[in-house]
């Protein structure tokens, strides 16, 4: 018995063209593609048939002893829309986002990057106690945030500040939380980067890893019951995916048919632990089918790929009440946090490669330039302006309450 991986092309009604390829693990005798009631129906019990009657699996018999070989040499392929130079590869996959939206994507990523630099320095200067940068992963944040509705509930881990940035969380409140000052709506109770915003539907971050995963599933279940037409998105890293809570969340989401997007940022490291020491299977995307979850792997440094996958997952999660798993491959360019010096466990060359050759911000900039929507002068002006915004944010930007 061979395990065949079939690509199912999914049609988007308002486009009429094939869109994101969603990979589904398919076995002979399987009862079709995932749908909203994936119960295994028991076959009519008949002792004359030599077919399996077990309630636990829908499968044929085989009389040849053969173990399934996990396929890690040629894993689930990585969906991308742009090449590393920001050029669209397959025009039919181009989401054709309007200029304002793409500029918003770009400005969110760069503003986040600027804020990261300044706050990292603030920690080094002793102004704040701790900080975590998002270098290299900005694409995963804004690409996914742009594909959601503003009221979709977000459960994050700690490296998703770009989602809040895209939702226009005021700079002053980011920094108030990091400084733990009187303006912090979290009342200065947590370490820096543990943001939360009720108005923007971003649940307050907590330090224990992966605890948000089953919680996000519960929230999605409640949203389904309320007929809210809302999806819940749950972010986590490939390290947190090793936690028991991740397994619990995946299984619950599938069995209870919850409209949730599991978004895994696979950035290669969990502090100092590389992925080779985190798992032996084919990453996190390959786990999804094991739970009965529609899954895809995307290039996390390609905002359009992230956008397309999240958009389609959102549409179907809400329409069909089923979970989706997106594994966004990316790279953590910065240290784990201000308490970490990653030169202790990885080479500077490796980091430089990603910073220079495959960065989500550069790739989008190339795209913007090729579209004629951006130029060097605007780049210079924006860099200056974003530094100014971070250094002297306007007070009361949230309008009195989050």
């Amino acid at each position, binding site marked *: 018995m061979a395990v065949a991986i079939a690509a199912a092309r999914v049609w988007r009604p308002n486009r009429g063209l094939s869109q994101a390829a969603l990979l589904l693990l398919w076995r002979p005798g399987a009862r079709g593609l995932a749908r909203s009631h994936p119960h295994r129906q028991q076959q009519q019990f008949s002792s004359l048939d030599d077919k399996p009657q077990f309630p636990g699996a829908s499968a044929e018999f085989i009389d040849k002893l053969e173990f399934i070989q996990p396929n890690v040499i040629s894993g689930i392929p990585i969906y991308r829309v742009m090449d590393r130079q920001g050029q669209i590869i397959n025009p039919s996959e181009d989401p054709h986002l309007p200029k304002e939206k793409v500029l918003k994507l770009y400005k969110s990523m760069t503003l986040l990057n600027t804020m990261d630099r300044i706050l990292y320095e603030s920690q080094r200067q002793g102004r704040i106690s701790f900080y975590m940068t998002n270098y290299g992963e900005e694409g995963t944040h804004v690409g996914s945030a742009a594909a959601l509705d503003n009221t979709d509930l977000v459960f994050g881990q700690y490296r998703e500040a770009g989602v809040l940035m895209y939702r226009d969380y005021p700079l002053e409140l980011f920094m108030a939380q990091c400084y733990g000052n009187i303006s912090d709506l979290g009342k200065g109770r947590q370490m820096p980067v543990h943001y939360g915003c009720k108005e923007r539907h971003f649940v307050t971050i907590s330090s224990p890893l992966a605890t948000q995963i089953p919680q996000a599933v519960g929230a999605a279940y*409640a949203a389904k*019951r*309320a007929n809210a037409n809302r999806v819940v998105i749950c972010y986590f890293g490939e390290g947190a995916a090793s936690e028991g*809570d991740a397994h619990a969340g995946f299984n619950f989401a599938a069995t*209870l048919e919850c409209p949730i997007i599991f978004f895994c940022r696979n950035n290669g490291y969990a502090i100092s632990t590389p992925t080779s020491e985190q798992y032996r299977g084919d990453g996190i995307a390959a786990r999804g089918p094991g739970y009965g979850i529609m899954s895809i792997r995307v290039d996390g440094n390609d905002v359009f790929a992230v956008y397309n996958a999240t958009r389609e997952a959102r549409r179907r999660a809400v329409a069909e009440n089923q979970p989706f798993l997106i594994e966004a491959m990316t790279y953590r360019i910065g240290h784990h946090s201000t308490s970490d010096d990653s030169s202790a466990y990885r080479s500077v060359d490796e980091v430089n490669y990603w910073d220079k050759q495959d960065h989500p911000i550069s790739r989008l900039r190339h795209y913007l330039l090729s579209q004629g929507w951006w130029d060097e002068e605007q780049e210079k002006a924006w860099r200056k302006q974003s530094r100014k915004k971070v250094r002297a944010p306007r007070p009361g930007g949230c309008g009195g309450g989050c």
Partner: protein
Amino acid sequence: MAVVAAAAGWLLRLRAAGAEGHWRRFRGVGLARGFLHPSATVEDAAQRRQVAHFTFQPDPEPREYGQTQKMNLFQSVTSALDNSLAKDPTAVIFGEDVAFGGVFRCTVGLRDKYGKDRVFNTPLCEQGIVGFGIGIAVTGATAIAEIQFADYIFPAFDQIVNEAAKYRYRSGDLFNCGSLTIRSPWGCVGHGALYHSQSPEAFFAHCPGIKVVIPRSPFQAKGLLLSCIEDKNPCIFFEPKILYRAAAEQVPIEPYNIPLSQAEVIQEGSDVTLVAWGTQVHVIREVASMAKEKLGVSCEVIDLRTIIPWDVDTVCKSVIKTGRLLISHEAPLTGGFASEISSTVQMFNYAICCVELPLYGKPCSIL
């Protein structure tokens, strides 16, 4: 687990008769009798089988809540859940095996009445059950989670202590999971051994941000459970499993609330304060009557009801009156909740006694 529960049910049906919980009849020496008869030799005690027992003592029929019906503990729980689901359209009940009625029959009939989207099974994963419940509560809906035995609550400990208890505080009240209630069968049942008998309330007592409640009877259970469900903080409601069938009394059909964090003085006395919760309340009630009968000692019996936040005032006031305190619980002694009560009372009463000794003239001592 279900087999044990089924066996438990069978045994309890055989042994329990009416309101009395005598499930073994031996001429043996209970621990209480051993204490009251110091003349019994060590050899005698060793030869006689040491068996504890209790007799469930029903409370008088409540008059102020309308029509009542004879219910045992699991039926009173069902009644509370029924009232909650009727009143609150967002309320859902979930956990292992709750759909068919639960291994202790606490959710019988609810799925048929309220629908499979409101009363449903989850996969076998306690950390998932509690995490999922927190998520439902974060959206504002009412989540009533069941952990099949308190012995299995530990995988959910991280979600309870690190997440549920701290949700409101850490977010500066932007988010909370106050509408979460976790119910779980608790305590000795006789044959449960290590993993179907535990009383883990002390582990949770060390955690600010949650409430832990333990009823002694069906009437108490329904009122306290309804208060837990309506409380704006995540609550853990431990149900003494031996009382599921052994305890039956008149319970109001309509919903009613018994306040949390209020201990109840079940019996007034003057010589010693006895504090307990859950099943043990009935044991110390019996001890109180034996003490009265055999020693002429007048005991004040207090049912603590809420473990945290516990009713310090009622207990301390009582100890000021009697001057003596005895706390009895099923859980292990070291770090058990009695240690918290006794140290608080000693601190409180020591201060009172030191200041006011000349006025009261009565020494304080803790047994």
